């Protein structure tokens, strides 16, 4: 247990140092994910027109919460993993008595900590400019929202890492992620709150992983009505299914690996 704690601490501290090497890029990466803030502008205008249930203040809070959740759930493992497989850089990692995925997990978790000051700065600036939008989530909403955000990151990571494993068979596994991202964009609640979708569409997508990647944690933070227990259960089921497929693909893929270029 002691050794495990040392391992985790070492991985996180070294990868944190690694991420801080890219401090200028971190600010750009934070800004590059400001699509929710743009969508906020669009939907606030629409809300003022009185076309739907959310007020323009609700819309502003929803999208700033989307921005925050996105900051904690961004995943890029497929781009790194694809390069490792195609260029044979996976080889040194495979020769260590630890699953290579932990390097990626440590990188992602550390990056979250490294980008935190930048994201926080942007959120504070937003509330200074638009103080009416400031709100405090209920204590339970905050706790469940944080848990849902951690799970959303876990689910997104598992899904993308599972796509990444196709790099063992195809040269550009990232193409799968790019197609998936289209659905993610619309069905996760990033472009529009799912409350604005027709009921039949919503009834279907609640059984997909998409709403749990953004909409569910955001709803908990801003206090939109959402079935908490059922949502967590669906999330956990998708995580479990993803893990099973992931490990199956890993075992098959590793036999396919040829350590190209190495």
């Amino acid at each position: 247990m002691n050794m495990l704690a040392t391992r985790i601490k070492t991985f996180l501290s070294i990868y944190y140092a690694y991420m801080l090497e890219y401090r200028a890029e971190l600010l750009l990466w934070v800004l590059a994910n400001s699509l929710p803030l743009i969508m906020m502008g669009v939907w606030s205008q629409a809300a003022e027109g009185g076309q739907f249930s959310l007020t323009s203040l609700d819309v502003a809070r929803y999208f700033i919460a989307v921005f925050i959740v996105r900051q904690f759930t961004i995943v890029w493992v497929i781009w790194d993993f694809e390069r490792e497989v195609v260029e044979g850089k996976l080889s040194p990692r495979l020769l260590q008595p630890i699953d290579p995925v932990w390097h990626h997990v440590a990188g992602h978790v550390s990056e979250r900590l490294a980008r935190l000051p930048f994201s926080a700065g942007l959120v504070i600036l937003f509330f200074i400019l638009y103080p009416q939008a400031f709100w405090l989530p209920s204590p339970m909403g905050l706790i469940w929202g944080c848990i849902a955000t951690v799970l959303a990151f876990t689910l997104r990571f598992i899904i993308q890492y599972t796509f990444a494993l196709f790099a063992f068979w195809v040269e550009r596994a990232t193409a799968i992620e790019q197609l998936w991202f289209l659905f993610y964009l619309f069905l996760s609640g990033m472009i529009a709150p799912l409350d604005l979708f027709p009921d039949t569409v919503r009834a279907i997508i609640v059984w997909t992983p998409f709403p749990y990647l953004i909409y569910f944690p955001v709803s908990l933070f801003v206090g939109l009505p959402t079935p908490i227990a059922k949502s967590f259960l669906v999330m956990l089921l998708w995580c479990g299914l993803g893990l099973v497929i992931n490990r199956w693909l890993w075992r098959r893929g590793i036999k396919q690996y040829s350590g190209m270029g190495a």
Partner: protein
Amino acid sequence: MTFIICDHLDKDYPVAVKEPGFKGTLSHFFQRQHRLVKAVQSVSFQIEPGEVVGFLGPNGAGKTTTLKMLTGLIHPSDGQVRVAGHIPFRRSAKFLEKITLVMGQKHQLLWDLPALDSLKINAAVYKISHKEFKYRVQELSDMLALEGKLTQPVRKLSLGERMKAELLAALLHRPQVLFLDEPTLGLDVNAQVSVREFLREYNQRYDATILLTSHYMADITALCDRVLLIHQGQLIYDGALNQLMARFAPYREVKLELMQVPEPAAMATYGEVEEIAGREARILVRREDLTHSIAQLLANFQVTDLTVTDPPIEEIIGRVFQSGTVA
């Protein structure tokens, strides 16, 4: 106890084949053609603990593929392989703790951080205590003369320093078996010598087993008594380096400096003329004819200087690979 056993090891790769030009591109898009490449064919050898063995072959001969099978990176298509009592491709933690693979053209150190940070990650991976970590880093950096370099970002190190740091990272867990693929690639002569000396010292200090590929014959002659020659995926020689020399180099090289520029035809009667440059000539003479030929040369030419040496090992190995057999 035999440490490394390869028994009729095979590896076949499917390789996509594409005709050049637009037509070829179109047909490749709609119907991919594959060709099976036999990278390694029925390779068998055994290595005892503590041995240092050179693994030689031209580019594409199957050296790296064999090393990948021995380290468990790839699955053999057929045959048996055992390293330190383990089946490599199962990649058990116990097996991985006993081996290392160093590839001259690949790096494992985090590029933008000091090497020491990557070493700390390795220490965590291999469960090395802090005290032991400090001791091993000190010991290895002394052996590799890396004092003060481990706190610099890896990208700021010279190629030689980086390669030494890679070696340090690869050996931090004190592996018993070292697979080294071109460990001195691109290094200058001084760096090559220090890497060789380090490997020799490591082998002696820890009785480590080493299988080494290199295109620098100086690496092989300095470290290996035994060599394996692989050609087009097949093992064509397994034995002592000096026996290979004796068997495949029944010649000695005679270098002459003469008073006058010699006629090539006149020289050819004493042996195989390698080069005539001005008043200097190099000829290969069969060992059994050596005394007689030298006496004749001294009698028939005005010789100002004469040396007799073995031909360079690169030439001998080159001849073996050209003929594709040692028989």
